[in-house]
């Protein structure tokens, strides 16, 4: 399994916020969840700060196969 995406982290964070707010779990578990949530929030923030747009180009080879290659901006810019 690769590193979870921003979206997955955000979803997990949302679930943790929900659980902490419900408060059905023992306090000890809530504190552990809280710590995990804080860590996720930091990771999300880091991802936002580091983010660089990923753009790939779908290329159709003459033999009918397809592949994705990194996008290269036109030279004359």
């Amino acid at each position: 399994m690769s590193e979870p995406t921003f979206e997955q982290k955000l979803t997990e964070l949302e679930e943790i916020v929900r659980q902490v707010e419900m408060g059905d779990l023992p306090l000890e578990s809530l504190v552990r969840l809280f710590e995990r949530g804080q860590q996720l929030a930091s990771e999300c923030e880091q991802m936002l700060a580091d983010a660089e747009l990923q753009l790939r180009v779908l290329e159709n080879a003459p033999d009918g196969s397809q592949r994705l290659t990194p996008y290269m901006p036109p030279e004359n810019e």
Partner: protein
Amino acid sequence: MEYRRWSVHELAQYLRSSLEADYRLQDIEIEGEISNFRIPASGHAYFTLKDAGAQLACVIWASDMATQRYRPREGDRAIVRGAVSYYEKGGQLQLYGRSIQAAGQGDLYVRFEQLKQHLSTEGLFSPERKRPLPALPTRLAIVTSPGGAALRDVISTLQRRFPLMDAILIPTLVQGEAAPTQIVMALAQVATLPDRDLLLLVRGGGSLEDLWAFNDERVVRAVAACPVPVISGVGHEIDFTLADFAADLRAPTPTAAAEYATPQPLGVMQDQIDQKRARMSVALQWQIGKAQARLNRVRLQLRPQALRNDINRERQTLDMLRDRLQLALARDLGQGRKRLASLRRALINAGPEATLARGFALLQRADGTPVSDVEAIQTGEMLTARLHRGSLRLRVEERWQDE
């Protein structure tokens, strides 16, 4: 006949006023092929309209040119509407155009309207067909020309607003004969890409002909049938294509399309994360507060004095309950007695005593059952007759039935 000798300037003035006096030449439409088209820094457009037999110098002032949707190109057949006059300094007759459109554009408009009507009747543009866009799109497909300004606008908007985006470009031509087929193929190819959640179909501004690929019936149908929701951003604000009508959301420009695709830009995302942090803190503090309160309660209950107080309090409650129970019982009993007395009175009235008092007797067999049927009695059987104030023992001598 005397000749009048004119100066060049006089002649030029004369030609000019003659032309301008002819109302037929002051609002005229001329069709021809554009050549030598140029727009210098002034912004005025200069070109020549020509056909097989003649040519005509034309100018359209920058202020008029700015309102034209059609961008003339060398070799286009075009229709210019304007006034004919004489340009004295240049020594030539000129058409001063106020508007220009591509020849045959009228046909295009008719075809546009017809196809729009046809597809609309079919329900291709109906609001119920529009799919909701994902709340936070993260895997984009972009269908456009790889070298176009539209792609540049989209890239810079995505980079600025939501650089976490994973975008895949499916390059196509966006104008010309081959464009529709390529766009249709690109729209279908989205299905073969890894889990795209949104598609942008974009193209920069242009004339109606330039944008015509986006009015092609095959393209319009492919937009409607696209496996993922489509945002279209074709041309400028004023340009509407049929692909726009079929798209799930129409953006006025490629930049706007990229903005719609990033509904939660970085600042908003950051705010949301901050908010979640805060909610977690508040919730945890609340839970800790609650736990503390519970602890205090338990601790209080553990103290012996508190325990005695509790026991006494329980006793008091019990006493109170007992009192209430007795009160209720007493009340029920009293009512019971009253009801019993009245029942007895009713029974006395209805019962045999009153009847016996009037001289009747109640016959009973030895086992006490009342006698009501002659058939049930044997001759010689012993019966008891209850009277008002005593009883008699009787032997049955004879029996008969009334007819």
